[in-house]
């Protein structure tokens, strides 16, 4: 079994998010990371720059926060995971007025039903892609490699990836509906503005199952205020599913001197079947 975390909305049970006993974290003092006198990575140093002077977003990242884990009394406790996950991973609207996304009535009902089912139909459990913006929130590593014309995001989960084209291309005229959509980016000052279209229907954008439709348009404004962090402002405009566009703020922290591991989610995968057996219980 791989190191896929299986996130379930209510309990946010993160079984498997920690590395298994047989594997080891790869530790290697990576070139280009600024350091203090004793060799510790200096994450407060200025962001690195591409040859064209724009911020270089490359690095191994995970959500900066720790997700809440609930014990049997419903009280929050530490999760025991070394890799952060965003509290917004469970409910993307957690910090919005009312603590929820501005659902259309059908989407509110669907999300409620999924919550009742404890998210056992979460595509993540079936090793499907962690579409944006979920990959910024789940407790897994993402490696970004930034070249002047392309930003590649590589997810440790199931060796999945996302490409963000920076070469000025427009959206294709007739896009295949996809999990990751088609992403193009441009600079506004030091913020990389990534626009994504061409999503498939019924994507989950958080673990409780808030949906996004193929009408969804996503904008991510990504900044690297210092060496060790990313700030991402995500705006979703999906009038089929939400009564108005909404914007949430996510943050990532750098995991220096390590690497993503080889992880194939489907190898010996048993979660989906086991979770399905709990339906209605």
């Amino acid at each position, binding site marked *: 079994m791989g190191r896929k975390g299986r996130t379930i909305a209510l309990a946010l049970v993160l079984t498997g998010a920690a590395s298994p006993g047989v594997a080891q974290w790869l530790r290697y003092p990576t070139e*280009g990371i600024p350091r203090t006198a004793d060799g510790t990575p200096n994450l407060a140093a200025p962001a690195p720059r591409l040859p064209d002077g724009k911020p270089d977003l490359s690095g191994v990242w995970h959500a900066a926060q720790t997700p809440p884990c609930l014990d049997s009394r419903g009280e929050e406790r530490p999760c025991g995971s070394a890799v952060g996950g965003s509290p917004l991973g469970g409910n993307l609207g957690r910090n919005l007025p009312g603590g929820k996304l501005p659902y259309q009535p059908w989407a509110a009902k669907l999300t409620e039903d999924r919550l009742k089912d404890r998210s056992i139909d979460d595509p993540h459990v079936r090793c499907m892609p962690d579409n944006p913006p979920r990959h910024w929130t789940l407790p897994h590593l993402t490696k970004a490699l930034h*070249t002047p014309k392309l930003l590649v995001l590589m997810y440790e989960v199931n*060796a999945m990836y996302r490409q963000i084209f920076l070469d000025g291309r427009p959206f294709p005229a007739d896009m295949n509906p996809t999990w990751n959509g088609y992403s193009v980016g441009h600079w506004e000052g030091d913020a990389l503005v990534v626009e994504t279209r061409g999503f498939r229907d019924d994507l989950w954008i958080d673990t409780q199952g808030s949906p996004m439709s193929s009408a969804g348009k996503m904008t991510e404004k990504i900044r690297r205020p210092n060496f060790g962090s990313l700030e991402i402002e995500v705006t979703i405009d999906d009038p089929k599913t939400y009564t108005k566009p909404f914007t949430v703020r996510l943050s990532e922290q750098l995991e220096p001197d390590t690497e993503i591991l080889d992880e194939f989610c489907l190898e010996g995968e048993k979660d989906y079947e086991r979770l399905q057996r709990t339906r209605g219980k």
Partner: protein
Amino acid sequence: MLRPLILVALAAGTAAAQSAPGTIRATVTDVPGGLVPGVSVEAKREPSGPTITGRGDARGTYTIDAPAGTYELSVNAPGMKSFRRSGLIVSAGQTLRLDVRLEETVSLRTLGEDPTAIAATYFNRPEPPKGPTPRLTNGKPDLTGVWLGGPTDLGGIDFQPWAAALLKERVDNNVKDWPPTFCQPASAVPFFTGGFFKLVHHPSTLVFIVENATAFTQMQLDGRPHPPGVGPYWLGHQVGRWDGDTLVVDAVGFRDRGWLGFSGQPHSDKLHVVERLRRPDLGHLEIEITLDDPGAFQKTWTGTLKATLSPDIELQEFVCNENNKDAAHMVGK
């Protein structure tokens, strides 16, 4: 699921130039009657003479010029059983015509796969654009691009007995447990996956993304060594360094009893892969691959894979395990 590879020998035709040759001309079809392009052909002069090798063309025919004599002819196309016939008499100035029908070792037609059509993708590819090798800011060749690789011939690996037996077992079982059936990587050597792949070349890392299988792998270019005891990984731990304009990628840390190719060629956890990547011009990529595996091979194996640039296209998103039915359809014997 990944489409089965049509692996075909790359050896260029090298007809022996001797006096008064005769000619062997053949048309190669599969059992349903489709032409099989790009077969590899060997004509060995009996009883112990030299061997002439050649390659069939894209239209399923091949022609070999051979000095007069008696020959044993073998015709091979991956995914097909070998055709072999001895006692063929070639007379000076005459043409010996043959119809060769190859049977498939494994039929994936029930899955809607058409080996002939897949082979046509490889053989009918457009000429790649011309131009000089693009360069990274550090002056080294930039290998970035969407490439169409293969076909590659994985034949000729000299296996240890256990590995030869495992290969036979996999073939006899119609490659039922081929990892891509279960959405797992097709080969320990990513370049053997086949189909379109993309290289993204960052000065610190070369990323390999394949379209029709899971999914990406990284080659670290920052001078780091292999960590002790790294892996076991499906695709190994890969580090690269420059040797002039050739990027030399070294990979260790593999799983035991993995697959190297569609036919089930096994490797052990002692597999050591060295890939020498060259981009001699804008449109071409050449990869010399050396496999050394003291756990499974009798000796090292070297082959070359050539890829052409596919400009102006992009990889499509492929999510293998979405409604995957292959595992149920791959029924074995």
